[in-house]
């Protein structure tokens, strides 16, 4: 297939996947939609890397270098989030999911009973 035709087909694929992301966001699936949204993003990234960034025609050490980066990202992400998920509640910021404490009174972004606690700058 001609390279230019191939690029156009990849672009059509990217547009279809973008449409899928948008449709997914209107469905209000809650937290269940999150892994699907990430999976679609991974598919799009895969298309861009394989075709537009020519990874398809590279071999050996270049693929290995890129795979190493993916492993490092996976390690960084999984270990850090596991830390957040397994910590003792009082070691986490007040008002967060795993903390038994309410957010500090008057903290920025916290729900407040007193409207004057949040002066609006216009």
């Amino acid at each position, binding site marked *: 297939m001609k*390279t*230019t035709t191939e*690029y*156009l087909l990849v*672009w059509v694929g*990217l*547009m279809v996947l*973008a449409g899928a*992301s*948008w449709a*997914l*966001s209107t469905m*209000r699936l*809650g*937290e269940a*939609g*999150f892994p699907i*949204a*990430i999976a*679609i*993003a991974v598919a*799009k*990234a895969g298309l*861009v*890397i394989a*075709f*537009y*960034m020519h990874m398809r025609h*590279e071999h050996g*050490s*270049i693929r290995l*270098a*890129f795979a*190493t*980066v993916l492993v*490092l*990202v996976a390690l*960084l*992400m999984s270990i*850090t*989030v596991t830390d*957040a*998920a397994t910590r003792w509640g009082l070691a*986490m*910021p*007040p*008002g*967060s*999911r*795993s903390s038994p404490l309410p957010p500090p009174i008057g*903290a*920025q*972004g*916290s*729900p*407040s009973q007193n409207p004057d606690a*949040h*002066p*609006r*700058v216009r």
Partner: protein
Amino acid sequence: MSVPELLNPAEPFPDEASAEHAGHLGMWVFLGTEILLFSGLFVGYAYYRFLFPLGWSLAIEHTHKIIGSVNTLVLLTSSLTVALSLAFAKERKRGLTSLMLLASMALGVTFLVLKGVEYQKEIVEGALPGKYFHADFHAPGADLFECFYWIATGLPLPLELVGLYWHLIDLIWIFLWPLIYLTRS
């Protein structure tokens, strides 16, 4: 390796193909370090999204989805035009090559302009990071989301002006779009 190939000590590569391979490898190692740089941001996002689900949900609901989504289409299309310009250049089609490069530049400028409009709206609505936060939605962590919004969408902007990173910025945006605009829980 035969002796004549090593006669010129100034030329480190025995042939054209290995020189090109070394160049590509260097570029990918560099792009890999860039990906790791941005991963720090994505990991921070994951950590705080896990801790403050309500704040994240409200703040994502508040973002300007239409502008963010149009910008996604603009970036994906600019990735196409950049890739096409290279393909046309290899076929020595000068006119089409310059046309595609011009289109890429125009799309890049469109992205920046839309981003400017969006930032102006966010500033007026008070969706600012940390202690500057004064938007009309309140939940623990909402101000933290705005930190990630401003850093994550702002970091690629200066990089976008350098053509070298074009596809990488597209890659990062592919993940930012659902994370910042779409995935309200």
